[in-house]
């Protein structure tokens, strides 16, 4: 009789703990779903890989702000990198669907020809063109 009672208590405890684990699991999943459904997302010290027509791009920033489905804003010190160049700048806007990125802040670009410093840029990635605005100084490797 006592043995049966003990078994029942153990079974109840097992079911109770399984219930708690299930609750914890569901509770942990919930915030993730909420974040992805939000329109604005901010991530600090962010770096990621983006696949575009021109190839794989690596992007990173002190703070990434998702504006909407197509637009992100890299706040503070940021970079864009692919097989052809590394762009180091500040406050870079990226339109993912149009494959355009731009900034009005000073920028430094390193490519296989040399190091370029400009006052801002507009990168038309789909067209393979980068327009550097204002005074530009491009030091060519020997």
């Amino acid at each position, binding site marked *: 009789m006592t043995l049966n009672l003990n078994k029942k208590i153990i079974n109840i405890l097992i079911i109770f703990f399984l219930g708690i684990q299930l609750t914890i699991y569901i509770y942990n999943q919930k915030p993730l779903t909420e974040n992805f459904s939000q329109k604005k997302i901010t991530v600090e010290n962010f770096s990621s890989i983006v696949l575009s027509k021109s190839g794989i791009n690596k992007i990173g920033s002190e703070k990434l702000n998702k504006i909407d489905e197509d637009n992100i804003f890299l706040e503070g010190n940021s970079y864009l990198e692919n097989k052809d160049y590394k762009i180091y700048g500040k406050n870079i806007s990226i339109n993912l669907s149009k494959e355009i990125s731009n900034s009005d802040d000073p920028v430094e670009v390193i*490519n*296989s020809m*040399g190091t*370029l410093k400009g006052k801002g840029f507009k990168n038309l990635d789909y067209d393979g*063109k980068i327009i*550097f605005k204002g005074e*530009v100084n*491009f030091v*060519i490797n*020997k």
Partner: protein
Amino acid sequence: MSSINKYLFFFIYLIFFPNAYSESFVKAGDSLIWDSENKSYTALGDVEFKNDKFIAFSDKMLAYYKEEKNEEIFTKIELFDNVIIKFNDEIFKGDYAIYTRKDNIIKLTGNVSIESPSRLLTGNELIADIDNNKRILNSGNKDSLVEVLLENNAKD
């Protein structure tokens, strides 16, 4: 102490001066466009270009490059409007210039002049063969070719 300073200055000079002198660059006042599809750079506004051969100034520059051993190398440079090219003690001027790297030839057209310490020549077209140290100055007709001999201190 002063001799140490002299040695230090000489040492710094040896390190930095050759690098500063041989630095190649492109400077633009308004903008620069890197077109990786057409492999070119377009510079606009008070353009300055320097390589190991000459230094050039113009309003616009279009430079074509090729990729070689993971490096980009300029192959052809076009300069537009108010072109001034300084090569050793010579100054070439014109409306348009094209430089090709493979043969090291600079060709200038439109209101061309070539100025050296002793003479000034003007015409319509100048071909400067850098490797063979040859200059060919052409004109539309014989009358338009002008040669001016400058005295050594005439510019001072």
